[in-house]
């Protein structure tokens, strides 16, 4: 028998921690999303455009929705249906939703026309679409909780559609208690998780460059690589990096 020792990598000695699933997970996470990508200090110059504002606008709207929703859930329907402060917080909740959807739809339009799934950003696009769909369901259950004639009308119109697709007996829009639980517990968790995943995917792959950004753009390639197109590079540097002094 050959007893000659074969040198094997020793992850613990190397400090990589690859023996354990936590060590492997840490290595994979740090490779996918190093801290400088998760919390960058600056962005490419093309991000200085209103076209890149609406995603974060939607996130800001979501923060207001969750904060006002927490206040509403802590005090209950008898408070927000009757008291003036309750009415105000209820209205903040509604108008945050309006702004959330307005910003999200404009964000969707702009990213669609930018073909924002380019450059390996397919999962970013899919999580964004999922966030949109889950948000629609969440907003729908919110409209059912107005407990007025509007919500009654919406519920009994939706009832037929949900029965038609076979889930009406399980997801019963006429069951106010069930819809209340979905709206304040399950669906907010789903929206929060999908939006968080979407933002993480944006950080992993970076914001999508404009379609007309040339491949020779200094910001789209490794800063250490030197291109052969010196003329293009010098023009790019003069417009993108003002601190670079041109002769």
């Amino acid at each position, binding site marked *: 028998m050959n007893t000659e020792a074969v040198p094997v990598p020793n992850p613990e000695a190397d400090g990589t921690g690859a023996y354990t699933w936590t060590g492997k997970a840490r290595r994979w996470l740090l490779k996918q999303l190093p801290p400088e990508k998760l919390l960058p200090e*600056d962005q490419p*110059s093309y991000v*200085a*455009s*209103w*076209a890149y*504002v*609406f995603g974060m606008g939607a996130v800001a709207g979501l923060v207001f929705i969750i904060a006002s929703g927490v206040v509403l859930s802590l005090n209950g329907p*008898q408070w927000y*249906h*009757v008291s003036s402060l309750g*009415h105000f917080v209820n209205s903040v909740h509604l108008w945050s939703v*309006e702004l959330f*959807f*307005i910003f999200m*739809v*404009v964000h969707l*339009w*702009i990213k669609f026309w930018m073909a924002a799934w380019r450059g390996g950003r397919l999962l970013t696009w899919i999580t964004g679409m999922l966030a949109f769909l889950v948000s629609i369901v969440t907003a729908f259950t919110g409209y059912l909780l107005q407990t007025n*004639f509007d919500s009654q009308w919406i519920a009994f119109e939706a009832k037929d559609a949900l029965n038609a697709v076979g889930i009406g007996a399980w997801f019963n829009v006429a069951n106010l208690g069930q819809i209340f639980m979905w709206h304040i517990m399950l669906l907010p968790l789903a929206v929060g998780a999908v939006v968080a995943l979407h933002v993480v995917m944006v950080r992993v792959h970076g914001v999508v460059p404009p379609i007309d950004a040339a491949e020779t753009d200094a910001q789209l390639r490794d800063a250490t690589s030197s291109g052969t197109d010196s003329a293009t590079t010098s023009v790019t540097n003069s417009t*993108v*990096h*003002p*601190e670079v002094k041109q002769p």
Partner: protein
Amino acid sequence: MFEQLASTDVPISPGTYFGWGDVTIQSGNLAVIIVMVILFVLALVLPFPGGKRRK
């Protein structure tokens, strides 16, 4: 409780609807769509404040 709720009731109104042929839309929904289109166009044409100074 019910008296309180009744006192805070807003008048029930069907709202204003616009229609062109088979298309009918409530004024609030139409306003939201117009606002979104305006924001989309403004985002494309308006310069970003301080954009030229940024890296």
